[in-house]
């Protein structure tokens, strides 16, 4: 299943609860989380948190920056959040590319299809975040 979600300028940690809710409402929960592959495609997951974290460092100094922001600076933090929410322990990918780049998305789909066959995955969740 392919899901397209939008976070824009919202901080990743604030956007993710709504995103997993909407995924669950539309697609339900994976039948077998241990046999589910998760593929996130985004050009900017981690970017908003990185900017916010560094602004916080500038404001408060390196020794007093907010540590809660840091894990969200990593581009794969969104994918990790989704995995924890659904308990998905299968392959977990974060691809960086402009979400309008269909050629790139096709490559991701190819990898997902291969994983499904090679690993016997029951569900494949592809999430495009812009």
């Amino acid at each position, binding site marked *: 299943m392919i899901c397209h979600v939008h976070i824009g300028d919202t901080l990743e940690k604030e956007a993710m609860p709504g995103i997993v809710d909407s995924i669950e409402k539309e697609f339900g929960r994976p039948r077998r989380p241990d046999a589910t592959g998760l593929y996130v495609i985004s050009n900017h997951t981690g970017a908003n948190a990185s*900017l916010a*974290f560094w602004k916080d460092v500038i404001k408060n100094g390196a020794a007093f920056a907010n540590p809660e922001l840091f894990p969200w600076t990593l*581009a*794969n933090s969104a994918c990790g*959040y989704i*995995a*924890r929410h659904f308990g998905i322990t299968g*392959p977990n990918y974060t691809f960086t590319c402009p979400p309008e780049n269909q050629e*790139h998305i096709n490559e991701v789909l190819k990898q997902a299809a291969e994983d499904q066959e090679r690993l016997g995955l029951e569900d494949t969740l592809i999430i495009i975040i812009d």
Partner: protein
Amino acid sequence: MNNSIVITGIGVVSPLGIGMDMLWNNLLAGKTSLKHFADLEAAGYRNTHACRVQDFEAPPVHRGTYMALDATKQAIAQSRIQLPENTGVFLGSTLGESMAYEMAAEGAAIDPGQYNTFSIAKAIAGAYRLTGPVQALSTACTAGNYAVGMAMHALQRGDISVAIAGGAEPFSRIAMVGFSRSRAMASDACKPFDAQRSGMILGEGAAIFILERMNDAVQRGATPLAKVYALGLSCDAYHPTSPHPDGRGLSRAMMAALQQAGISKDEVDWVNIHGSGTKVSDTAEALALKSVFTTGMPVLSGSKGAIGHALGAASALELAICAQGIATQTIPPTAGFTVQDTAIGLGCTTAVVQKKIRIAINNASAFGGLNASLVLGSCLS
């Protein structure tokens, strides 16, 4: 026809040397690149030790890209390959050019989206006018293993005949502060699996590989250095920053890799551990190793005491060490490991080990619960 996927070229930009030979010789000599940096102290950082690439000139906002391009040039030269136009590029990094985000936050008129992992991958493709697939893997500290694994899959599918794959990560002030504030940094040195370990030391660098099918490599007279057999992936789905304490995720990644490769655990002669030097992560990895290698432990070594933790480039740099080790049938010593932790009950080699290496595993784990184990093999008959 032998359709094994092989590495025929390795390029490295590391804190312990630019070029595989320099890195390798320094590793075998037991050297470490760990240094105190006055600029970090002046900026008020609590942790002022790091492993940084010295004498490498690049515009700060393009440092990761320049490192990746330098490593790519080295890999192509060693491989002596004429790249076909449809060569694929598979590049892993955590954030890409961290400096761009720092500058944007400081008010510079810069779009950090133009400096992410994809931008580094695109720069490699652009430098060689390649039209093949370009994939940017942003899977934090596992990204190098992911990139090489995806390149292997594209070659196995027959989508491409040559791949450029690896990882790149410039020194990141965001990561330096972030890991320090997460209390993951060591105050002195990275000591993988050691009883006195207290955390990680940040590094930087790039490692890039040329991958192709064995029969293509042999046909054009290239020297295959190592086979790439399989990539095992898993997610702990447990905690944003901590691994599952019993190491179940990494255990599953190693088992998945061996299963896909059709290789028995008893054939594994060497594991290059993730060995970040943090209490929790090393303990979890040790439990994972014990759960997989129930009938005998392969030789263990770790690299982060010598080159630091280069995040998105870490597993690529360590894969370069694995490939060189397999090609020369030599396992380097583990800088930083001196006293075995009784809670871990596993030791890393502190000496250079020369032995028959048939199969090696390169382990990597990351924030977000990611685990990636890449299985490599010898090309020697």
